[in-house]
């Protein structure tokens, strides 16, 4: 039976036995057609138009746009923001996963809800709340001005806003993973004489490494691409407080379409790399889980792509 299935090509109609549990051929193909059309229009087209428009005026214009000083400054600032936000949120994610995944305590679900917050708050609001604290009219505004510390409309503000919108990614990836893996291996390590840190580095960390990578990739993608929150805190000072997305906005509003899309193409490329690494990690995780003897039920608690990683761990 297995070989018959393997040899059957996907053009053939299902045989009688399968007809009870599959749709007829034309239904299948119309559904596939609808899905492909929908995805094609909404996903492929935007990607294609980015690259097409970027090179519309030729390769030299493309590279000139990227080498332009303001563009380079924007790239630099984007890298700085991500370079600070991602490691910080990585440490946070690990700490949160350990506290929430391994222990039971009062207020745990409140904490988890708090971590989910940036996902449901508008990016503009995310930026605004930092202006209200650090801006000139903000709570700490006068004190900062007196000490000549600039946070809003300067690089620190941008980094802060980036940290805020990206801090859940690693945590949300790791928490269900750590919870699903249980405490047994860590308990075993303890009985064998390992200290807390030894247990973490030698036992826990290797078990979560793919989830960790996944979370870091997503965190980075969002950190580099954040627009709304950074737009509010940045002040839009060319060459100083513009990240790549903000620079794209400026170019676009000045009708410099090809240069705008040129810079955008870099971010689109990053998006494709992110998706690629994501698939790789999911494939790895699926391999891993197929080797696991223990079947763990993971609740379909998914807000984002981590669903696919966890779905590799099949329900009992």
């Amino acid at each position, binding site marked *: 039976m297995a070989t018959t299935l393997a040899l059957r090509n996907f053009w053939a109609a299902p045989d009688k036995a399968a007809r009870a549990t599959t749709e007829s051929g034309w239904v299948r193909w119309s559904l596939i057609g609808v899905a492909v059309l929908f995805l094609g229009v909404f996903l492929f087209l935007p990607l294609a138009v980015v690259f097409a428009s970027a090179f519309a005026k030729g390769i030299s214009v493309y590279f000139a746009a990227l080498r332009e000083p303001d563009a380079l400054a924007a790239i630099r600032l984007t890298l700085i923001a991500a370079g600070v936000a991602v490691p910080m949120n990585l440490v946070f994610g690990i700490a949160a996963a350990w506290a929430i995944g391994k222990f039971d305590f009062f207020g745990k679900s409140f904490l988890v809800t708090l971590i989910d917050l940036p996902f449901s708050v508008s990016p503009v609001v995310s930026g605004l709340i930092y202006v209200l604290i650090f801006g000139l009219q903000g709570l700490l505004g006068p004190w900062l001005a007196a000490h000549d510390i600039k946070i809003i409309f300067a690089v620190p503000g941008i980094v802060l806003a980036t940290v805020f919108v990206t801090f859940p990614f690693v945590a949300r990836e790791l928490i269900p993973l750590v919870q699903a893996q249980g405490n047994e291996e860590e308990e075993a390590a303890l009985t064998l004489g390992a200290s807390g840190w030894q247990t973490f580095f030698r036992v826990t960390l290797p078990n979560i490494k793919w989830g960790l990578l996944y979370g870091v990739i997503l965190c980075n993608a969002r950190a580099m691409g954040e627009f709304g929150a950074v737009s509010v805190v940045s002040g839009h000072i060319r060459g100083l407080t513009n990240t790549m997305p903000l620079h794209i906005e400026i170019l676009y509003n000045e009708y410099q379409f090809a240069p705008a899309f040129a810079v955008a193409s870099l971010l689109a490329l990053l998006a494709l790399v992110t998706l690629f690494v994501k698939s790789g990690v999911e494939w790895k995780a699926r391999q891993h889980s197929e080797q696991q003897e223990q079947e763990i039920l993971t609740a379909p608690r998914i807000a984002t792509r981590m669903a696919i990683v966890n*779905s590799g761990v099949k329900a009992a």
Partner: protein
Amino acid sequence: MKIRLKQRSVLPGFGLSLGFTVLYLSLIVLIPLSATFLKASSLTWPRFWHVVTAPRAIASYELSFGASGIAAAINLVFGLIVAWVLVRYTFPGKRIFDSLVDLPFALPTAVAGIALTAIYSSNGWIGHYLQPFGIKAAYSRLGVVIALTFTGLPFVVRTVQPVLEDLDKEMEEAAASLGADRWQTITRVLLPAIMPAALTGFTMAFARAVGEYGSVVFISGNMPMRTEITPLLIITKLEQYDYAGATAIAVVMLVVSFVMLLAINLLQAWSGGRMRSTAGGNDLALSEA
């Protein structure tokens, strides 16, 4: 019976990890958030009410919520179809489509914004087909819906996919053996099973769309009272140094966010409970006495 906040733990590191987590959250989230509410409270209640119910604000709510609802509904319908197709069928290039579903998560909103505008403006790839029919996709409310459909696309697909994958084929076979035809099986057996997940995805798509900024501001045209979304209204007020006004509107959005968050958590608990009862999994949490 002594009431414990927490049982004495066997694994070390609770204090350190929880302490760091709470500290981080306080600094990054709680303190800035409270500043917001503090600032909002500097407005008197009548003034607050006046700002948040101004015609321009109301128009922006109508647009933001209305367009988000429509976009989320589109994603519900098509997301179900896409999830079904990806889980149940094979066709050339399926893997690529599957990976690409996450594009709206990975692609920066500004890039999405200018790309969509380029496609739907009157001389764009799709826009120029629509123009003869008098359909203005860019710089209109339609454009806003299109952009929000893009941003919310992965939510329903990704919440429904794992549920579909885990569905027992035997349920369908049982229905068929009891005489149900395919349509009945789908509507009476399968759809109810995936509805909780689908609704969760819908709510997430909706919540994300309401606050969306980058993908929308380019294609919407930003005409006040017509195509101005609420986040843009906040920014406009900020640029005019009307901090109090901006904060007032932001508070409205925050309240909506909290409500959405609550709804999502409840929906997930509901669908998670459903999964657990049908799959009959083991709970390894409590050690067996």
